[in-house]
């Protein structure tokens, strides 16, 4: 606990704010099933009326089906963050693996692997995702996260590959090799730890791009499906009567913007730390 506090104090101001925001959102997401005041999908919640402005009973108001917005937002945060996290993990694993292998491999193999990466980078992600969504019925949330992750790893693999190449060429590694250290040990002891931070940054940046993508897909009905809540679904609900029920649009918008901003700030900070450490 003390270590966390120390790390927190060492952060610059913006990163502190960002971490706090993310921690708050993550906490509400984790606690949603127990701490949410109402059932987010309840058909006819007892005693609520539709389209109530924020009040004591409903802190963030109710939507057109009389569901409590705070509860829906908490559960929606859960879904959206979980999707981002799962996608980010895939990006980390696949991106690090691909980039690592390309970095360690011969020039020829490396070139072909990177050509594939370039091709993937040149293909608009949304198009691929939409094509898959068009042909599958009701993609479960995990499936969506998988899909988003599988279309987001190329950039990370580029970063990892570049770093691995760099590390391979350092004097340190050359010395270790001269001393007779076997290749696998070189990889695990020297190169991987050096490449991991970069992969992590790539994954975090990818998460920052997955969140708006998932929101957009759910907004047009191609992502998370109602009645389950996710930020995109909530935005869609809020877009129907934006002037009357402003709270339905405001709070999910703030949630998304705050999250992506915080993740970006942290990614920047991580990137700076890595650069100065290198």
């Amino acid at each position, binding site marked *: 606990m003390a270590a966390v506090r120390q790390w927190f104090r060492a952060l610059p101001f913006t990163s502190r704010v960002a971490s706090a925001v993310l921690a708050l959102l993550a906490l509400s997401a984790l606690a949603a099933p127990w701490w949410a005041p109402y059932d987010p999908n309840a*058909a*006819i919640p007892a005693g609520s009326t539709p389209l109530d402005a924020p009040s004591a009973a409903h802190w963030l108001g109710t939507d*057109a*089906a009389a569901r409590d917005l705070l509860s829906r937002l908490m559960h929606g945060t859960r879904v959206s963050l979980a999707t981002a996290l799962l996608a980010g993990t895939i990006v980390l694993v696949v991106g690090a693996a691909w980039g690592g292998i390309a970095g360690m491999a011969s020039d020829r193999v490396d070139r072909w692997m990177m050509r594939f990466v370039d091709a993937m980078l040149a293909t608009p992600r949304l198009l691929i995702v939409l094509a898959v969504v068009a042909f599958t019925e*009701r993609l479960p949330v995990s499936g969506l996260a998988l899909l988003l992750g599988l279309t987001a790893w190329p950039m990370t693999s580029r970063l990892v590959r570049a770093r691995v190449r760099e590390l391979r060429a350092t004097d340190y590694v050359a010395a270790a090799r001269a001393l007779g250290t076997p290749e696998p040990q070189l990889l695990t002891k020297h190169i991987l730890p050096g490449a991991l931070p970069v992969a992590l940054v790539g994954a975090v940046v990818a998460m920052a791009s997955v969140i708006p993508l998932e929101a957009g897909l759910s907004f047009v*009905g191609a992502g998370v*499906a*109602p*009645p389950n809540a996710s930020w995109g679904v909530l935005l869609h609900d809020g877009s129907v009567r934006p002037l009357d029920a402003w709270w339905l649009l405001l709070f999910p918008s703030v949630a998304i913007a705050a999250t992506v901003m915080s993740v970006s700030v942290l990614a920047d900070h991580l990137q700076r730390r890595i650069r100065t450490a290198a």
Partner: protein
Amino acid sequence: MKLARRVRGIAAVALAVACGDGGSREKSVVIASGGDADVIVPLLWAQSQARVYTELMFDKLADIGMSQVSVGDAGYEPRLARSWSWAPDSLSITFRLDPNAHWHDGQKVRASDVQFAFDLFTDPVVASGAGADMRQIADSVTVADSLTATVWFKARSAEQFHSIAYNLVPMPEHLLRDVPRDSLRTSAFAKHPIGNGPFKFVAWEKGVRFELAAFDAFARGKPKLDRVVFTIAASAPAAARAVFAGDADFIETVSLDDLAEAARHPEIAFQRIRGFEYGFLSFNLHAGGTPAPHPVFGDAGVRRALTMAVDRAALVKNVHDSIGVVAVGPFSRQQWSADTTLRVIPHDVAGAERLLDSLGWTRSGAGTRAKAGRPLAFAISVAATSRARVRYAELMQQSFAAIGAKVDIEQLDPPALAQRLGTHKFDAALFTWRTTPSPAGARQTWGTKAWRPGSPFNAGGYASAVFDAQVDSGLSARDVAQGKAHFRLAYQAAIDDAPAIWLYEPLIIAAAHRRVVTGPMRPDAWWQSIASWDVTAPAARAASGSGTQQ
């Protein structure tokens, strides 16, 4: 940085100046619709919006009037045919065409066009569904002179006039004679149809807009409007928004949510049109695609009990409030065969519980009922796109829970739901049928023969010899009274057997800008009144923004 902003500012000002002068002096109406057509040739289309376009461009021989009675010809008004007469044995009807009727290219409409149309639509190469139906009741069309055509029928039937008048749309023989019949849908004619109706084709930007202009030489008088433009929105709610924003003048139907917008738009008037739709919860009487009876719904008693558990009046009041009525049976009240005095299954929760107990579905305390290990549990499949239907499903879920049935709601998007119905892989499904003035649809939607793999008609597999026989008798009856008597028996059988819970009949609420004078609209075809629409003031559309100021 500020430079770019400044440039943008100047451009905006320039635009505002350029747009100063509003639209033209002509009378035009913009109609918003949530979908587009696929083919705009009569009887060859598959998307219902095409019906609107084609009926404005192509006139029929006769059309049904506000009475909406499709039996005989009393309910019909002359259109292209100025008059008609029946042969004494009713096996042929002779139509006399209006001598002033012209095609949009100036040629006169001739009796040979009627004969040509019959040939065309019944030709299997053309593959028209409505044409195939026509072939089943009519033999041929003969021409006596240039204005007289006689349709010969295979047999008498109550709706023989209706099926010809509705389907046999005369087509310009002089233009279509040499067009290969198998590529009619993609021919030059299909891209620029020449009809004889009150409006002629101007332009069609698929997915964006469809434009018609008044036909000056229209036999029954040039329409008051100069132009009609359909603006196609991405969805029904988007179309409604276009009307509220002032980008369009009329929309055929607004949803419950949109009605709440009404208060902020005093310039929009609403008109209630009796609807032809009825919604219901269909039980699958068979087990997922097989002929074996469904473990829960195979028993009529269970179905009746579930019906008793639902307070339909309260449900309709909750969801549709004053813009819907409770459905009585497998029909719409607007049809001539309708009967609202039929005996319905009453709302009786205690009775439902007793009935289920007596059938062996028992429960301990307040849990879910079960019989021989099988719980009384099922799923209701509903289209996620309709908030009203989802709501009905949720309310029924609660009603069923109260008598010990565990229900899940499965929200699907329309194509997925259609597939489930086609493959019969569902427990219960909540959807609607849109009917026409003719009750012949009952055969297709609840008749025994309609239950086929791959077809969503009668997806629940209702099979009743009584229903089939009485519907057939009703359709071949000589007059309305006799027909009604038969249909009464048919409908009563269907209500008693409870293959579905008949829920609601929604009213159609059309929204129009006050400057548009629409007059009464036919429930089955509101667009037919467009020929007599008028506008009291030119649209303010071209000015910046919309017609309303907040």
